[in-house]
């Protein structure tokens, strides 16, 4: 279809056609078109079918207030076609139809409305009970609009930025631009967000005069040009503000373009001041069939012609309540549409001149008339009535422009915690009080006069600047006076509904909620707007409260007869515009850490696992029992990358006091060259960490924690000393050092290849600590420990040397059969040795006593001075606690699965770990069992998942299972 060519306000480039497909046919539009404008121009009038009744739905607004133009585009469901710029090759599909939107096999649903009153789900389909499971599957199928394939994968670029600014202006209409300019002229940084691809707001498409010989659209371009001269304004067009949070944090998303070739970008803006200048949308007029295709709002019809060059119909009836409606009628008439009549709810238009213009064109102007029913599908005629319903007349038309007036876009304000109150004069929800640093300007204040709108922007811009410490109070005063000199907010139309029953008057299009449904809800006792919203679902669909947001509270208030008093808007929630998860996810920041040996371990066949924040090697073969790895440690030697251990330096005059506070042992007893093993508890006396401490100098200690505690230990120690004012320094060296655990009977031989010092058992015995130089260069701190129950060394080396030392050891170890070992091997080895891993053999509620480590607690330290000691005192002799025990299986071949439970007539505990031990040639494990089942010799019954009641038996035995005398680790 050809476009109107000589509209000066066109935003489509008719020299650049774009083709796309819909219903297996090729359509074409132009650059600048939205998907919906292109389809409309291609003759499409029905875009979708409604959720419940499958009513045909068409183009009603152009700003996404409802899901009438929700379509599937390139596999993405629920795309608002009226807001989505057309791109070449787009694949567009209709949603929620069986057949096509024009011929929908589900169309009969519309006649079933009597069977589906408000909340009918709650009152049906459960009697008899057996029908519900079947009915619910039907409900599921009928529900939902768009469809997404489980295999859908989003392509494209998703960007994100986090700018800070002095002033953030929401809305690039005349008041927003004026505000931005005013603030920027004081030298502040300004960010302006505009949802449409261009600036200008409601000036942009209007050819009427702003001042003599200056049409509105030209005025908008002047303001835009002025902004361009101010480099401290950053303008983001095609950027929808979606959230406002306290301290003026504003979120938005931007659609990419040629200059910024991402698909979408998430913006998180922290501003000192925020100005909301989001203008108005139209308040839908309620009458029968008010959402029939062919019925549209004023700006929709007006902009179709002026912005897109498309005539919205051939013969139109207008039922409006605002001057903009008359202005649109005049423009559309001039563009070539026949206007059957303009019905105006108001007694008089605000500008009498408009009426004479209607008269000049011989367009009938019906004061005090309103649409009562749209007839025919597609629209064939409309019946109009006087407000009291006394007189009626029917007019033929294919376009009904209907609107009950304006309603402010207050979402951003209410999200910013502004308090809104109903204003009788304007019929708007106006800001009653604004939080510090939040300002409002423009049409949303009820202003209509173009220059008053700009003046209010000036006031807001200067107020925002003043809040940032710029702008003079005098300048603000002048601006306020200027605003006061302009026409004030106009009286608005308060009519909610034409005099009809409302059976097919839709208050919410997305949810197919009718006025009748609202009445039903009220009859059922739902008196608060929020409750009615929930019960009828009005305003909970994709358009959020764009359509019902204003009418619903008005209608409810009308019911309560004390109009005004109870009128409160429902809560606005982010995202104010539905936003793709892809956009929120942005570049995705979920992270994992890698050790210096990560790549090498992978090359060596390491099967990596995410453990906490780290990636670590769990196995080095496909045999997850790890038999070869295990045997190699018991017989030869192996290496484990233990870099993830927490490593800390604490030093300063009060370092020892701090250690005494958090460790249960007596840290004063650390001797030079020796390691001290100890544990930390929380105030519950529950074990949260174990590790070793060494002293490296006067008041200078180095200690390790478990991997899980690495990130938290510094804050934890500082927390537990926060009232003391002690003088110590605490440094987290976890990422600075790599750690190699070299273990196995041949470990010493391997180590002596890289270290030129006496490391004989006599010179460097078990539990010793010493600092060496490896390969004549690398500083290494070595601890002789025995977590896996063999001779073993824990080598702590600066991270940058880690790889060198690792390679040297691998090389040196070759003749001894050195091999990597992973976490599972370590797990089995330490279990055989009876060593616990916190979190595996303990729960949140497991005390030091419960795991059998009570001996680590030094009772001579004053209990109140040691974290957890009071609880250790109070729980020491408690009965019926879960205690850690070792057990052997009756059937020595088969261990129970980890996590199996210990039962008699009830649950008595659970298996923490159990394995078939190749070393011991029998199945052993560790369990937490309820006292007194923990006594050595007790037989316990184990219940595995899916065991069908077949219990297996085990006997509680002393630990360790392997090398009970500890000879091997001391050798």
């Amino acid at each position, binding site marked *: 279809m050809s476009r109107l060519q000589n509209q000066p306000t066109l935003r489509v480039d008719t020299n650049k056609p774009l083709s796309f497909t819909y219903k297996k046919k090729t359509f074409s539009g132009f650059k600048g078109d939205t998907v919906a404008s292109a389809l409309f121009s291609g003759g499409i009038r029905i875009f979708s079918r409604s959720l419940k009744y499958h009513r045909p739905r068409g183009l009603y607004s152009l700003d996404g207030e409802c899901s009438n133009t929700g379509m599937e585009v390139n*596999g993405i*469901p*629920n795309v608002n076609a009226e807001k989505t710029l057309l791109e070449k090759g787009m694949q567009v599909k209709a949603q929620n139809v069986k057949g096509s939107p024009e011929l929908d096999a589900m169309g009969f649903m519309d006649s079933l409305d009597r069977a589906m*009153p408000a909340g009918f*789900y*709650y*009152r049906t*389909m459960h*009697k008899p009970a057996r029908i*519900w499971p079947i009915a*619910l599957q039907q409900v599921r199928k009928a*529900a*939902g609009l768009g*469809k*997404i394939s*489980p295999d859908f994968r*989003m392509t494209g670029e998703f960007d994100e930025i986090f700018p800070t600014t002095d002033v953030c202006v929401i809305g690039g209409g005349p008041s927003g631009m004026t505000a931005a300019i005013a603030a920027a002229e004081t030298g502040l940084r300004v960010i302006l967000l505009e949802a449409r691809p261009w600036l200008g707001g409601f000036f942009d498409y209007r050819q009427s005069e702003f001042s003599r010989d200056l049409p509105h659209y030209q005025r908008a371009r002047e303001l835009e040009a002025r902004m361009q001269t101010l480099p401290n304004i950053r303008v983001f067009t095609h950027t929808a503000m979606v959230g406002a*949070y306290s301290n003026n*944090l504003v979120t938005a998303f931007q659609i990419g373009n040629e200059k910024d070739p991402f698909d979408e970008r998430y913006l998180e803006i922290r501003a000192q001041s925020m100005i909301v200048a989001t203008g108005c949308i139209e308040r839908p007029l309620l009458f029968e069939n008010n959402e029939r295709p062919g019925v549209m709002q004023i700006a929709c019809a007006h902009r179709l012609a002026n912005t897109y060059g498309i005539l919205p119909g051939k013969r139109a009836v207008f039922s409006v309540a605002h001057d903009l409606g008359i202005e649109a009628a005049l423009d559309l008439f001039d563009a070539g549409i026949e206007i059957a009549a303009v019905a105006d709810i108001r007694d008089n238009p605000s500008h009498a001149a408009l009426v004479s213009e209607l008269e000049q064109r011989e367009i009938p102007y019906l004061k005090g008339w309103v649409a009562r029913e749209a007839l025919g599908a597609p629209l064939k005629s409309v019946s109009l009535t006087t407000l009291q319903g006394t007189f009626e007349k029917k007019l033929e038309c294919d376009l009904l422009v209907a609107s009950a007036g304006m309603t402010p876009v207050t979402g951003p304000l209410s999200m910013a915690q502004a308090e809104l109150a109903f204003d009788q004069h304007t019929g708007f929800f106006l800001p009653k009080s604004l939080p510090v640093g939040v300002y409002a300007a423009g049409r949303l204040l009820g202003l209509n006069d173009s220059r008053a709108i700009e003046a209010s922007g000036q006031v807001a811009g200067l107020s925002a600047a003043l809040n940032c410490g710029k702008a003079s109070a005098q300048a603000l005063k002048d601006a306020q006076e200027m605003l006061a000199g302009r026409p004030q907010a106009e009286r608005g139309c308060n009519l909610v509904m034409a005099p009809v029953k409302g059976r097919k008057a839709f208050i919410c299009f997305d949810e197919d909620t009718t006025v009748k449904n609202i009445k*039903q809800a009220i009859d059922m*006792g739902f008196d608060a707007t929020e409750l009615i919203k929930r*019960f009828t679902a009005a305003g909970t*669909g*994709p358009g*959020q409260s764009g359509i019902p947001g204003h009418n619903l509270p008005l209608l409810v208030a009308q019911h309560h007869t004390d109009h005004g008093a109870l009128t409160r808007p429902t809560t606005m*929630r*982010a*995202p104010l515009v*539905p*936003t*793709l*998860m*892809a956009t*929120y*996810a942005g570049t*995705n*920041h*979920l992270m994992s850490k890698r050790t210096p040996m990560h790549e090498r371990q992978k090359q060596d066949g390491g099967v990596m*696992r995410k453990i906490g924040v780290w990636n670590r090697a769990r196995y080095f073969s496909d045999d997850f029992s790890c038999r070869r790895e295990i045997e190699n440690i018991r017989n030869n030697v192996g290496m484990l990358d233990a870099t993830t251990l927490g490593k800390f330096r604490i030093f300063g005059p009060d370092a020892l006091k701090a250690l005494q506070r958090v460790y249960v042992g007596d840290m004063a007893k650390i001797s030079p060259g020796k390691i001290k093993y100890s544990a930390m508890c*929380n105030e*519950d*006396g529950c074990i949260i960490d174990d590790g070793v401490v060494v002293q490296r100098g006067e008041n200078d200690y180095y200690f390790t924690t478990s991997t899980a505690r690495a990130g938290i230990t510094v804050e934890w120690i500082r927390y537990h000393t926060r009232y003391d004012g002690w003088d110590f320094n605490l440094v987290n060296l976890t990422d600075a050092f790599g750690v190699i655990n070299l273990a196995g009977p041949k470990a010493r031989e391997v180590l002596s290849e890289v270290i030129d010092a006496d490391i004989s058992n006599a010179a460097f015995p078990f539990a010793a600590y010493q600092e060496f130089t490896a390969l004549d260069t690398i500083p290494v701190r070595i601890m002789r420990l025995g977590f896996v129950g063999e001779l073993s060394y824990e080598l702590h080396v600066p991270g940058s040397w880690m790889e060198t030392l690792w390679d040297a050891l691998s090389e040196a170890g070759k003749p001894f059969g050195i091999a990597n070992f992973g976490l*599972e091997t370590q797990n089995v080895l330490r279990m055989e040795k009876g060593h616990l891993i916190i*979190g*595996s053999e303990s*729960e*949140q*509620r497991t005390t030091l006593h419960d795991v059998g480590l009570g001996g680590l607690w030094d009772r001579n330290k004053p209990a109140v001075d040691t974290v957890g000691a009071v609880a250790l005192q109070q729980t020491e002799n408690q009965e019926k606690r879960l205690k850690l025990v070792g057990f052997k299986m009756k059937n020595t071949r088969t261990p129970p*699965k*980890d*996590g199996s*439970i210990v*039962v008699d007539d*009830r*649950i008595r505990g*659970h298996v923490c770990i159990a394995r078939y031990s190749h070393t011991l040639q029998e199945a052993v494990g560790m369990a937490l069992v309820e006292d007194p089942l923990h006594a050595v010799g007790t037989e316990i019954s184990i*219940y595995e*998942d*899916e*065991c069908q009641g077949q219990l297996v038996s085990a006997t509680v035995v002393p630990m360790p299972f392997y090398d009970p005398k500890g000879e091997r680790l001391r050798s």
Partner: protein
Amino acid sequence: MFDRHKPLWGKPPALKQSYDAVIIGGGLHGLATAYFLARHQGMQNIAVIEKKYIGFGGAGRNTAIVRANQRTQQNVPLYKEALDLWPVLTKELDYNLMFFNCGNLNLLHSEAAMSAARMNIASAQFQGVESHLIDAKTCKEMMPALNIAEDITYPIFGAMFHPPGGIVRHDAVVWGLAKGAAKYGCHIHQHTEVTGINVENGKIVSVDTDQGKINTPRVLLTAGGYSAALSYHMLGIKLPISVLNIQAMVTQPLKPLLNHVISSGAYHAYANQTLKGEIATGAHMDAWPNYTTQTTAYYIRHQAQAITEMLPCLKGVKFMRHWSGLADMTPDMAPIMDGNHPIEGYYMNCGWGYFGFKSCTATGKYMAQFMATDECPEILKPFHLGRYAEHRLMGETAALVTYSPDN
């Protein structure tokens, strides 16, 4: 058949000067207790006092997930009974609570998590609750949208599959219980705020409200996230509670995509598809006390990142609405239910955190029994407040909780 619409919970009654019991809070537990008191315990001269409208608190904000695969044997039977009660109540109340028994998949992302889940599963099976450990491939078959590739932050190893769980329509529960309670005589006073509780000689005598004083020998505090503040403010009784904000959000409605509830501890995220077709998701909490019920930008981003790693097709779906509610967290992630201690006639039921929807039917039943008989039912005994001083945390969480500063 629908032409006459009667008020569901009766005409608003006038506030009487005395009731046999006053329940503070028109949320899930308050209304459920009222219903069971009035219908099953024969105590009908009772009132529910709600400061806003019924369902204003967590009752109207939760994501409506129900299940009975808790960790400890003190909890499982309670939740099992609660789960079994949904169809029963649907019938009793003659109100469709829309129990969608779709089953829950609790995703597991490591060998250790599989073992930990096995303990829950074995415990469930031992107690007659269906629950199974399944592998990643089976998960994928059950939920084709799931990404079981290894290149995500927390690759999926398997899941705990709990067939009897699912979702229930939360609003229907509120309205249905209110309807049922009102039918048996309970007065529901909305827009009435309790401002004080009066004690004489160690016994409850009355409560103050902004609409006047009510004499009563029994008070039940079930004010959800407000309970701990009220308890300290009105009676000086401190509770081991941290009141956090928990957030949730829904996408635009879609045709059926998720056939089960899925959740992941590692990602701090869960999702289910409501009967309306929206994907409801949530789980994370800011770890500091906050009564605002405001949402945060941080959280919706986190959620999008987490959810789309597990369910990548959702990148093409839009978030539509984001909200927040209060979660009154206890140190052991289990609630506090107690009565006649330290004050005679004073009952409390709080600390439900983000899991008090699924339980409300059973707790309503047993709290009602407790209040009607003054005898604590066996099943509630483990939940008494004294357990914290006795060093007997419940064990519902295996790991340390992050909102406690001492962890």
